[in-house]
């Protein structure tokens, strides 16, 4: 049984390899028909996260157009890139299915994944074919502990981001003369929120903060007024929230309504709405002063502005999905360039061995370690100031000074 398995899969690999070898051999013969290499973009185009998928597609398409306009993949004879979109339908199972489909449709490499659960099953599906997969923004640490050699992560992991967030918080707080001493954590009871709460409770005390309470709530939440009531009674200097978009909006609005204004303001890590222009435009008052540590494009990179305009032209609100997917496609293209082949093994090797330009992300040179994690990935601190989301930290990317304490 086993033997048959191996021989067949090897034959399949050979066949695929053969086809691509033929394609690669072709350019000399038929210049007019430029070969194409397919890049799969796995995103939730439907379901609960459809909005995120949409932004990601805009970013990815922008990158593809840029690359093709600049002459395609040069080491593959100017091969043009074609974007295949796989719809993960916002759930883990469909994510695996869509990855299979991308493979069947001939994707040489897949980027995306978006959420941790979806990325988990999708990368596993890709592993069956040793199909290279670069995760765009899923943060769960567990994703990179599986020894899947086809899987890479472009974005910072949760613990990397948490380190940065805590370090920056201390720096900002120190600069204000330690305005904030007590902290309340308000989090959704899912993967993101619970993980954050646990980590913050473990590490904040050592940094001189007192965690007065960690309040969890379900998603979707019907009501935040009782959570806010508790906060009013606790009077923390700083609130660290972690929710998805809807709950963040509900929370911020309820805070505003109940006149709860913690001195230090709101400091979010991967905040659901804090880095969303939609929130900022729809509820400017509730959003003002909110700080977030999140994936964010380098504001000093001119391409980032162009991306923002492209998003606005499509009638959407800008969020990190666009720049990060623009950049991850760029990385994939560079990997193809290095690999000089559209074959899985070569691409994986190229990803392991080289350094990459990070597109519009503030990662400097991206480099993947043995687990596949980009060691130079870095989240940015943002703050809503005057109805704009401004980068406030680290300094080399900062557009504005932090306003801290936000309500001081």
């Amino acid at each position: 049984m086993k033997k048959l398995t191996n021989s067949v899969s090897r034959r399949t690999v050979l066949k695929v390899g053969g086809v691509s070898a033929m394609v690669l051999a072709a350019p000399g013969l038929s210049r007019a028909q430029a070969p194409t290499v397919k890049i799969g973009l796995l995103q939730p185009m439907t379901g609960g996260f459809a909005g995120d998928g949409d932004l990601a597609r805009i970013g990815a398409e922008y990158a593809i157009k840029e690359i093709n306009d600049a002459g395609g993949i040069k080491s593959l004879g100017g091969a043009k890139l074609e974007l295949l979109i796989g719809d993960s339908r916002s759930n883990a199972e469909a994510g695996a299915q869509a990855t299979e489909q991308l493979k069947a449709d001939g994707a040489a490499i897949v980027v995306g994944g978006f959420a941790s659960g979806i990325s988990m099953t999708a990368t596993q599906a890709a592993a069956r074919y040793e199909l290279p997969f670069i995760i765009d923004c899923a943060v769960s640490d567990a994703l990179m502990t599986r020894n899947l050699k086809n899987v890479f992560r472009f974005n910072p992991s949760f613990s990397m981001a948490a380190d940065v967030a805590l370090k920056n918080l201390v720096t900002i707080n120190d600069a204000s003369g330690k305005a904030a001493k007590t902290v309340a954590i308000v989090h959704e009871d899912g993967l993101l929120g619970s993980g954050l709460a646990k980590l913050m409770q473990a590490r904040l005390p050592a940094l001189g903060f007192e965690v007065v309470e960690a309040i969890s709530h379900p998603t979707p939440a019907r009501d935040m007024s009782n959570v806010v009531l508790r906060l009013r009674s606790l009077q923390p200097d700083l609130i660290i929230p972690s929710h998805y978009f809807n709950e963040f909006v509900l929370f911020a609005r309820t805070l505003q309504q109940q006149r709860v204004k913690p001195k230090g303001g709101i400091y979010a890590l991967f905040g659901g709405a804090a880095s969303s222009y939609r929130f900022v435009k729809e509820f400017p008052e509730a959003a003002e002063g909110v700080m977030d540590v999140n994936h964010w494009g380098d504001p000093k990179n001119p391409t980032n502005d162009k991306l923002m305009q492209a998003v606005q032209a499509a009638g959407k609100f800008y969020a990190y999905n666009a720049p990060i997917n623009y950049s991850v496609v760029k990385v994939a293209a560079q990997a193809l360039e290095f690999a000089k082949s559209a074959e899985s093994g070569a691409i994986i090797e190229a990803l392991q061995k080289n350094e990459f330009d990070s597109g519009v992300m503030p990662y400097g040179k991206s480099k993947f370690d043995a687990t596949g994690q980009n060691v130079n990935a870095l989240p940015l601190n943002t703050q809503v100031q005057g109805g704009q989301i401004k980068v406030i930290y680290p300094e080399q990317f900062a557009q504005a000074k932090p306003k801290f304490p936000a309500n001081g």
Partner: protein
Amino acid sequence: MYSPTIIFEALMNGLMLGAVYALIALGLTLIYGVLHIVNFAHGALLTVAMYLVWLASDRFGLDPYVAILVVTPLMFAIGYCLQRFIIGPASRGSDNGILLATLGLSIVIQNLLLAGFNSDTRTIATDYAFEIVPLGPLLLSLPRVIGLGVSVVTAVLLWAILNRTDIGKAIRAVAKEKLGASLVGINVAHVYAMTFAIGTACLAIAGGLLMPSFYVSPTTGAAFVLVAFTIVVLGGMGSIPGALIGGLLIGVVEAISSLFLGDSLGQIGIFLIFILVLLVKPTGLFGARA
């Protein structure tokens, strides 16, 4: 641990939110009491109502509270048609058939909304959403206070409709004795549809009360409907005072338990109440004898 003011305020919060829960449950329990069915499409219909309120505000600039006046007859018509032309004929009176037809309907509605509006959440920004009514040391949210008031008025109105009008009498007759009612010339299919319509119209009011401070997405209704089921079961399936008191009770329980236990565990509390009532006293607090 908490100051009495905070606890009292949580209590008020619970009462005020519970009133809106009760309004949602009123429709559900009315439909159960007459048609003897659990309407699984109730949550989806609440979502429809909320979208209609949102549309009225977004497209025509209507205030959500004013929109209630427009959306209520609309929802009434939708409810009537659904029961008269889809659920009724499709289920042919079988209990299981109705259960499945309403389940199918809820899936259709929810996903039509998804296809039409995608999954973005919609909110209405109003000037008064953040207003508070200071009551001594308490800060009560204005939309919530309005919610409490309107819910109580609606419940009284519903009671008056059932007890003082011809259709109300027909509804009560059908609820008591379907065969007898049809023998004395009451059109049972019409009465069923009217009941469903009234129950659905209640959702329009609930939608209007929620929108100023809440959001709507295609799955929003689902978050409320399980609570509504609990209230209906707790109050006694089919009992209108039961739904009202059950709603207020659940609101208070939720508020107090989330104050002391956190919101996540508060949810389990609701389900446990639900399970316990079903197991121990399926007729609920005010239900008719089985």
